[in-house]
């Protein structure tokens, strides 16, 4: 076994320091060491997006990031999306629009949506579908997800213009 290392990064604004093996993925460390189990594991090869987190401003699949690579990084996970006890627009839109069924893909999709709206505050349906293509959902047929994303974008736009 190779030596464990100390890795330091921030998650949702909190600085954390963990001891991990190089072979541990960021996903594994978030879930097993930090008990941030909102980030889900669906495939472990980057094809489902359930483990999406935002790393230094970019969405990444945390199953394909080694925890040691996160040294110094700023991470945002699903647990950091709501503002205290208030849901953000995307979360609220998902609930109002019934955009989830089983809910296992939901954290990844919400995090990915946060990244999308950061980059493109007013996405077309095609923009949404392309940006979320790396997040598989097997329950909803995506219809209500796409609508919820657009509803959230609109709500945020209105809020920003007020």
């Amino acid at each position: 076994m190779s030596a464990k290392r100390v890795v330091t990064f921030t998650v949702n604004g909190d600085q954390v320091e963990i001891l991990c093996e190089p072979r541990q993925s960021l996903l594994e460390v978030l879930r097993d060491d930090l008990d941030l189990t909102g980030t889900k594991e669906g495939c472990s090869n980057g094809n489902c997006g359930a483990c999406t987190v935002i790393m230094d401003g970019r969405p990444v699949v945390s199953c394909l990031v080694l925890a040691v690579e996160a040294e110094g990084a700023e991470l945002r996970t699903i647990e950091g999306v709501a503002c205290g006890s208030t849901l953000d627009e995307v979360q609220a839109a998902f609930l109002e629009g019934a955009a989830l069924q089983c809910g296992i893909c939901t954290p990844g999709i919400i995090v990915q949506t946060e990244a999308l709206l950061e980059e493109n505050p007013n996405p077309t349906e095609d923009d949404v579908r392309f940006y979320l293509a790396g997040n598989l959902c097997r329950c909803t047929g995506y219809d209500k997800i796409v609508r919820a994303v657009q509803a959230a974008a609109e709500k945020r736009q209105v809020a920003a213009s007020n």
Partner: protein
Amino acid sequence: MHAFDYQSPSTVAEAIELMAKHNGSARPLAGGTDLIDQMRVGRLAPDVLIDVKKLDELNVLSADAAGLHVGAAVPCYRIYGDETVNSQYTALADSCHIIGGIQIQSRASIGGNLCNSGPAADSTPSMIALGGVCVIAGPSGSREIAVESFCTGPGKNVLEPGELLVEVRFPARPANSGSHYRRMIPRNEMDIAVVGVGASVTLDDSGQNFVSARIGLGAIAATPLFAEAAGESLAGQPVNDESLEKAAAAAREIASPITDMRGTREYRIHVTGVLVKRVLQAAIVRARGEQIDYCRGH
């Protein structure tokens, strides 16, 4: 996953030294989107990973008189977000836009795509079409090799133990040139190319005749191919169905694909011809300074 050590050198020299020291049992780690998956499934089991993605030389993305320099670890999103790439090296932007999903594009690099040496790599045909040259650093100095000569088999390439791909350099774009990449996939996204075609064309001032063309093909042989004869067949020819058809036929000629879960041999050969024509047509439109009507993934 197999246990391994992790090193993050701060200079290329240090990286090369580490690579050489482990004599073949070390792998450079850039975005990791292929490497980590392959290690997890046990296809690769290096003893050491050398994280090269923070090395300055591997993060270059700039244009000068020599052309465009793309550091081997520059992630896709930076490439397609780059003004020069988007206006002049569009095939490369096209490729980077469809490698994996958005999350993968946050990490994956064209250097990694090339070093992974998959026959279906989406950026390699574009790099071939754009005349990319690999800049390799090694214990005994630096060397250069054309992208089309880099891969030697599925998962295999010319890198010797201790060598590191530093950047891919692309020559400056001539006037009246345009390029494009597209692939056939059964879905519209998140898929591996069944056939991928990258092409770059240069037209004369009238926009009606080819000056030159380069075509790269993916997923139709053990390595991505440079369809040299297909490209050469267009030089000096008028832009018309006949010349495109001839180029497509020449491309089909060199295709030697396999049948697998992604498509049959016959299908791939057929699609090679179809895509070569479509990609050339799009490159021509761009060479004329117009926008192509292109739905990513379709």
